[in-house]
């Protein structure tokens, strides 16, 4: 097991280096000049030059790059000028918010898409199959921000079922003591059911938006891989030995069909991390996504680099956990290693 983790991390190293270099170049190519932006409206060219030296942007590119990488080694991601705080603390505060949103979205979409995919595969060609395809495709056909705003309009503005989209917790609830940073879990730990209900109700709409958006790829892959497995020979043997349909479909067929599904979830998760940038903007969610967008628009390099690096590490951790999951699901992977 450790060998697998070791090998996986080693193969991931070059892509991390790639990410660091590309983000550095990308942010330097951005047209905006942060010095001008932060020198304020009435700044004269002299004032702007002064701010530029203070930010160290006047030094040659390679030098800036090495100081950035040296900083990285020390774990210092620089300070964000838009929020005035070190990027590391900023990300640490905001990452749980985004992670909670994306994970909840993924879990909800998994709980809907997988059963839908299985049903569509079992009753191939029936109305449920077409319904699954139509629903899944419809969900992904709308831009995520439009779905979000529509949900807010219907569930908050018109009917008032959902709470006001003002971020992670209702204004008048103070967030539960932070253990994991996930409000839902922290509230459970603290047994503060009022905060739990508030946090859950705040999560409802953004999670539904993300789930609808990520429904299609998961449902489609579940249906395809289930169809593939159901037509294989060991399912015929299972049927021929009279096993109950549920055992045949779930324990025999679905477990084999799980591997491509798990791979897609890995890809969907990293796709969602990008997409929830828009959801965070619509629902005023204090996640890393909205933080990165403001920084990118304001050409504030440090947070953009910090954000992308964290996402890259998160992506590699996700891939690692997926590989481990392969090992759990498929003994061939575990044994042949």
């Amino acid at each position, binding site marked *: 097991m450790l060998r697998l983790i070791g090998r996986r991390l080693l193969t991931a190293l*070059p*892509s991390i280096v790639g990410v660091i270099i590309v983000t550095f170049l990308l942010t330097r190519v951005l047209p905006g000049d942060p010095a001008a932006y932060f020198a304020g409206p009435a700044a004269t060219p002299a004032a702007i030059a002064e701010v530029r030296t203070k930010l160290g942007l006047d030094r040659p590119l390679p030098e800036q790059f090495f100081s950035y990488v040296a900083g990285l080694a020390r774990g210092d991601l620089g300070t964000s000028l838009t929020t005035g705080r070190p990027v590391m603390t900023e990300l640490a505060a905001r990452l749980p918010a985004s992670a909670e949103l994306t994970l909840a979205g993924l879990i909800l979409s998994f709980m809907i898409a997988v059963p839908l995919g299985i049903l569509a595969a079992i009753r191939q060609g029936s109305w449920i199959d077409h319904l699954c395809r139509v629903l899944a495709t419809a969900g992904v056909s*709308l831009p995520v921000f*439009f779905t979000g705003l529509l949900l807010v*309009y219907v569930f908050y503005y018109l009917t008032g079922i959902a709470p006001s989209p003002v971020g992670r917790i209702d204004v008048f609830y103070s967030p539960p003591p932070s253990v994991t940073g996930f409000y839902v879990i922290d509230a459970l730990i603290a047994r503060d059911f009022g905060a739990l209900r508030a946090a859950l109700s705040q999560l409802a709409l953004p999670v539904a938006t993300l789930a609808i958006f990520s429904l299609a790829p998961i449902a489609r892959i579940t249906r395809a891989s289930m169809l593939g497995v159901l037509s294989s020979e060991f399912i015929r043997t299972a049927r021929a030995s009279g096993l109950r349909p549920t055992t045949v479909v779930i324990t025999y067929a679905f477990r084999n069909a799980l591997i491509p599904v798990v791979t897609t979830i890995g890809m969907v998760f*990293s796709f969602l991390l990008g997409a929830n940038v828009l959801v965070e903007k619509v629902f005023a969610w204090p996640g890393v996504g909205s933080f990165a967008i403001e920084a990118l628009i304001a050409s504030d390099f440090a947070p953009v680099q910090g954000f992308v690096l964290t996402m890259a590490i998160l992506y590699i951790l996700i891939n690692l956990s997926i590989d481990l999951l392969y090992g759990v699901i498929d003994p061939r992977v575990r044994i042949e290693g």
Partner: protein
Amino acid sequence: MTDATQAASAHTSGLLAIWRHTRYVLGENPVTAFSFALFLFFLLCATIGPYVVPFDPLTTNTQSALQPPSLRHFFGTDHLGRDIFSRVVVAARLDLFIAIASVALVFAMGGVAGIAAGFFGGWTDKIVGRISDTIMAFPLFVLAMGIVAALGNTVTNIVIATAVINFPLYARLARSEANVRKEAGFVHAARLAGNSELRILFGHILPNIMPIMMVQISLTMGYAILNAAGLSFIGLGVRPPTPEWGIMVAEGASYIVSGEWWIALFPGLTLMLAVFCFNLLGDGLRDIVDPLRRT
């Protein structure tokens, strides 16, 4: 029959076969038939749209701003008094261009790189693998934003950004399909016949993975438009005042709460219909391109 006519008849019979087969595939699966009809409808809008629409999509008319859908304005008017129906129809051309251009670009880049990686293995495989890992490590949407923000928000940059973020998907798919087929019997037979490795790659392997790629191509066409819409929502989309579904939905979004639902709804529905049609198109295209389905 002389050779020439025989060859000709073979050619026409080939086309005839494709047409009969296509009609056959459409007949068999109503959903695919519906998606093809929809696609033709969008193509029609893209080609003759601008000449047919009741109003000029760009002229503003502040007196009749924010009017709900009526007989004069089927989809109502936007905050500058422009006719939304005309803009939606004319926008088809730009959106289809974005979808098709980015898909063509990413298929050429990702698909070919993927096949080469899968077929040749060794260092090509490592390089393509590393590139796609690096791109995948980025949160895709932020990468697209970065590219458009850096290069300026022209349509070409949006197409390039969409192509780059879909590169890993195509490279990985093409690589696995090529890898499976590289030891197939007909590949060895092609080698025996004296085909060079490159001819085998493009002559034998690429045509055989087209059906699978077709499904992916149709999905990406949908994502390309959604991506453009997302970029427009944060102000990096297409330059105003050119009509484009994504930017119209983005602009209309802030008017939902104030009651002018039609500004965002109609472009949104059209966008959904288009992405919907592209996704369903995938299965239909695969059936047509897949020789096994040919009776």
